[in-house]
């Protein structure tokens, strides 16, 4: 039986549905020392902003039961350097490149999206309206349907690539935000970003993270993320990238059954730098063993 792992996500052709999640993989250079990145379905690079950002004070990361908290704060070299150095370097792997874009104002989002689209070096935009670790922008765009619609209307005017909106789980009803994104021009959705959390060091009697709060990721959030993918898949007609606690091929299958077209793997890269290629290899075996010729056969079967 021939196994076809390829998927088409909002016009982006992926040879398999597995890509590293934004923020967990830099711009790929570090993990290219461990394996050939051309094995990936696509790469989603670190959140890119108009100007370079150094991020929040340290400690910025800490482990918790079943996952971790981070408060990196969108540290990145800025769009000039990303377009001049990082995206050209990534071309050698001949895989789709999706650039995660963040900003503090509508103008900033539009500027970065336009620069990325005009560079001709990327295949998709993932709009980050869900970062819990910055005061301005980020999450504030992703929790209010009206604010999100205003942002998307403007971004849509300058975005010539498939536009994927990355949603926050830190909302009352994620389907409302998803519907608003679909109605104002999103070509796809990715969900979820991290859940806001905190860890207290009982010796110092203070939060462990310097900023106090951080984003929870890892296996602990998988049930929440799968529930949200399921709910959103029932509500919208645009494709979904499932994100949250994926560590195995079985997890990928579960997300696809809940309605996801593709997935992003984040925290697992830290535990095992070979997590993505391992999951891709295991996914092919799983599909073969269970008589799944292509993922379309099981997509949304749990709905």
């Amino acid at each position, binding site marked *: 039986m021939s196994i076809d792992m390829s998927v088409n996500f909002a016009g982006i052709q992926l040879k398999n549905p597995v890509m590293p999640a934004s923020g*967990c993989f830099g711009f790929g250079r570090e993990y290219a020392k461990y394996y050939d990145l051309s094995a990936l379905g696509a790469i989603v690079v670190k959140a890119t902003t108009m100007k370079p950002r150094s991020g929040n004070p*340290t400690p910025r990361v800490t*482990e918790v039961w079943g996952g*971790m908290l*981070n408060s*990196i704060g969108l540290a990145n070299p800025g769009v000039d350097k990303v377009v001049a150095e990082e995206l050209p370097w990534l071309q050698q792997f001949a895989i789709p490149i999706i650039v995660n874009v963040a900003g503090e104002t509508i103008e900033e989002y539009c500027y970065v999206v336009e620069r990325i689209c005009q560079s001709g070096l990327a295949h998709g935009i993932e709009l980050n309206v869900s970062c819990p670790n910055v005061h301005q922008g980020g999450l504030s765009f992703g929790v209010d349907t009206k604010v999100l619609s205003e942002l998307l209307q403007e971004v849509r005017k300058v975005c010539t690539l498939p536009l994927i909106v990355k949603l926050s789980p830190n909302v009352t009803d994620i389907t409302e935000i998803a519907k608003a994104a679909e109605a104002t021009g999103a070509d796809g959705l990715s969900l979820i970003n991290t859940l806001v959390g905190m860890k207290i060091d009982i010796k110092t009697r203070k939060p462990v993270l310097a900023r106090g709060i951080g984003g929870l990721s890892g296996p602990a959030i998988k049930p929440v993320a799968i529930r949200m993918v399921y709910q959103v898949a029932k509500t919208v007609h645009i494709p979904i990238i499932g994100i949250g606690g994926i560590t195995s091929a079985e997890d990928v299958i579960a997300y696809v059954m809940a309605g996801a077209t593709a997935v992003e793997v984040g925290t697992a890269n*830290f535990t095992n730098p070979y997590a993505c290629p391992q999951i891709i290899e295991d996914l092919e075996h799983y599909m073969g063993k269970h008589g799944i010729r292509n993922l379309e056969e099981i997509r949304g079967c749990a709905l």
Partner: protein
Amino acid sequence: MKLQITNNRELAFGIWQMDITGEFPYCKVQAGQFVHIQVGDGFNHVLRRPISIAEVDPKQQQLTIVYRVVGEGTKWLSQQNAGDFIDLLGPLGNGFCVEKCKRSLIVGGGIGIPPLYEQAKRLMEQGETLDIYLGFRTSEEVFWKERFDKLGNTQVYTEDGFIGKKGFVTEGIAHRLAADPNIWENVYACGPRGMLKAVQTLFAEIPIGGGVSLEERMACGVGACYGCTCKTTSEETRRICVDGPVFSWREVNLS
């Protein structure tokens, strides 16, 4: 890569030594580099633990780490036995340079001391005179004093004073500097941030080489996540895992 534990024992209160063998690029290790160790099975613990390399013996194919049991991950490490396998990445980061000079100062505090052992060994082997100042919180946490004694003139400081001198290493160093500000050409240090800052301040007006090794909570350990950053004196961001953990004294902002 999977390596095998040959020895794992408590050296002092809460301080453990683990010897590891197996396929590893022993000859490429710089003193001050670290290994990133997976703890627990599968994804029980999502973050690896960065532990500096205390000693490397290419002939015996042996790597030694010394760690303090502070949380769940290091507790798990302390429960592993000889014969067990552990998964580690490394060697990672940039270690200490080995510039030849006549006389160097080694300053270590607590669990920052281990990477200085391999560095001191290499400096001693090339004929340098070493003054070694080791600080510990309590006397029951003192370890490897005898090992350092063989490498140079070693002074131990504890906060309780039962072993060595009572007080902080910086007091002894300040005293020596008052007599001769240019006694040391290179200074190598690792330990609590407060101690490192105090050492940097002591040498603020004195030109020195060497390096300072920093510690921070890490996630990926390979430079991808920007979890473990620090600032340079010109306010630029550096990643401790790949740009460090060893930095030059003039480059890094320790405040």
